């Protein structure tokens, strides 16, 4: 296990060094990514200017959800690039090479690239989160700060799990299915606002089928002290990030199933 982790960091180190070679390009792309993901929050700000609140949630409270889910997504987006490109790997038959090596395939695919320019989204989400922490009328304690971090990490695991599942589909379809973007990118869009504002079918989908509500909404209830009337038990508010980890573990099991099913395209 330790050996695998060390190997992963070797892989990542190589990837980072190669990206740093194009410094100007890296900077421009990061700034571009910062801006294009940041306008999302400008849009939210404009709406709050007109409407004041959304179902009793203030801008600062929504900003907490926004910050957590976007940090989570940026981490997974940066680490799962290999899975994103996996369809090409199956198509070209390059996956055969990974099978020959005596290390787990998930590790090798994950280690292909750490996409550094995703720091753009990460940075803007962190700024929004820090602003929210400052603007909120909440007494921060070590426990709530830890829960915020855990929510972001749990969310990152969940999104990683989704990307792994999307890639796993390529074992059967040879192409990565774009329709999964609906739940990844659409999931970010959804979870930027508290889940309680949506219609029941969407709420049920993002708690039961894909536990995205765990990412931002349940922990946010605990952090903001809104848990009382929400009907969500405290254990779930505090333990919710674990659901993200569980989701990733299940996804990795499905991945293994896919590997067993793999037949090379032969090209």
């Amino acid at each position, binding site marked *: 296990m330790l050996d695998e982790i060390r190997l992963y960091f070797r892989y990542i180190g190589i990837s980072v060094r190669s990206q740093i070679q*194009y410094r*100007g390009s890296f900077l421009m*792309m990061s700034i571009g990514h910062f801006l*294009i993901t940041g*306008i999302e929050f400008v849009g939210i700000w404009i709406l709050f200017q007109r409407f004041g609140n959304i179902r009793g949630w203030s801008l600062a409270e929504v900003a907490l959800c926004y910050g957590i889910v976007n940090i989570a997504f940026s981490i997974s987006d940066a680490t799962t690039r290999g899975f994103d490109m996996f369809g090409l790997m199956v198509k070209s038959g390059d996956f055969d090479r990974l099978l020959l090596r005596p290390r787990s395939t998930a590790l090798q695919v994950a280690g292909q690239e750490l996409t550094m320019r995703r720091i753009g989204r990460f940075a803007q989400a962190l700024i929004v989160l820090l602003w929210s922490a400052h603007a909120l009328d909440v007494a921060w304690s070590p426990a709530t700060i830890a829960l915020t971090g855990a929510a972001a990490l749990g969310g990152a695991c969940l999104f990683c799990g989704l990307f792994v599942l999307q890639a796993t589909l390529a074992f059967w379809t040879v192409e990565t*299915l774009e329709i999964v973007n609906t739940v990844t990118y*659409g999931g970010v*869009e959804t979870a930027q606002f508290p889940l309680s504002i949506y219609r029941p079918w*969407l709420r049920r989908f993002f708690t039961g089928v894909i536990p995205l509500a765990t990412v931002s909404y349940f922990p946010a209830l605990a952090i903001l002290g809104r848990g009382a009337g929400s009907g969500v038990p405290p254990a779930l508010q505090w333990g919710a990030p674990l659901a993200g980890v569980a989701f990733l573990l299940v996804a990795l099991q499905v991945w293994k199933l896919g590997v067993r099913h793999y037949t090379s395209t032969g090209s």
Partner: protein
Amino acid sequence: MTPYWAILSARFRTLLQYRAAAAAGFGTQLFWGLIRVMIFEAFYRSTTSAQPMSYQEVVTYIWLGQALLAMLPWNYDRDVHALVRSGNVAYELLRPLDLYWHWYARAMAWRVAPAVLRALPMFIVAGLFLGLQPPDSWASLGAWIISLLGALLLSAAITTLINISLMWTIAGDGMASLVSTLVVILSGMVVPLPFFPDWAQSILNFLPFRGLVDVPFRLYMGHLPPGDILGLFAHQLAWTLALVAASRHVLRRGTRRLVVQGG
């Protein structure tokens, strides 16, 4: 005129082949639109103060946006990018065509074809089930069609400018993502422009971007009176011409300093 028309129609027919991508895009956009509608619904239920648009109008606006998303100049043409990177752009210069209008024709096809593929099913589904209203009147319909034409001319001009910028930033994304950020927010795609703070309105009215989304969509639903079409269309055309002139100038300078490395 003929060769440019031929380029446009050939490109258009090529792009129409990507039906599977269009189907996947359709599903994503449907889901996206549903989320946006629910967010606005929640906002409207949270306030009693008067808003610049009614909830019904916002719903129509959102579905129009999902139907016509591909029309927006929010990305660059990867083929042009590849031409510049590989040096094959030199062949483009050899052709007995004006490079600007050649690329402009390409850009136009690229903005129209995917939009057509996605717009039709979206109009049907959203119109039947999801609250997309028909145009306010026959006059509004007419004004909408004219302004869509203006929006396309403008969109192709901005797209071409982004493509030309690739001659400088070989890495691509830099200039392109800056422009697309401006386009997406200032055209009214993220949030309809009437919701923007009052102090921003006169700036937004001056800039070219409202001609892409805000103007055609609000004409469609009668939020802008159809009688305004003359002034609005002139605004779209004036910006298109200004962008064409500026881009041609930039392109001339770009080709003068273009160095194609061998190999």
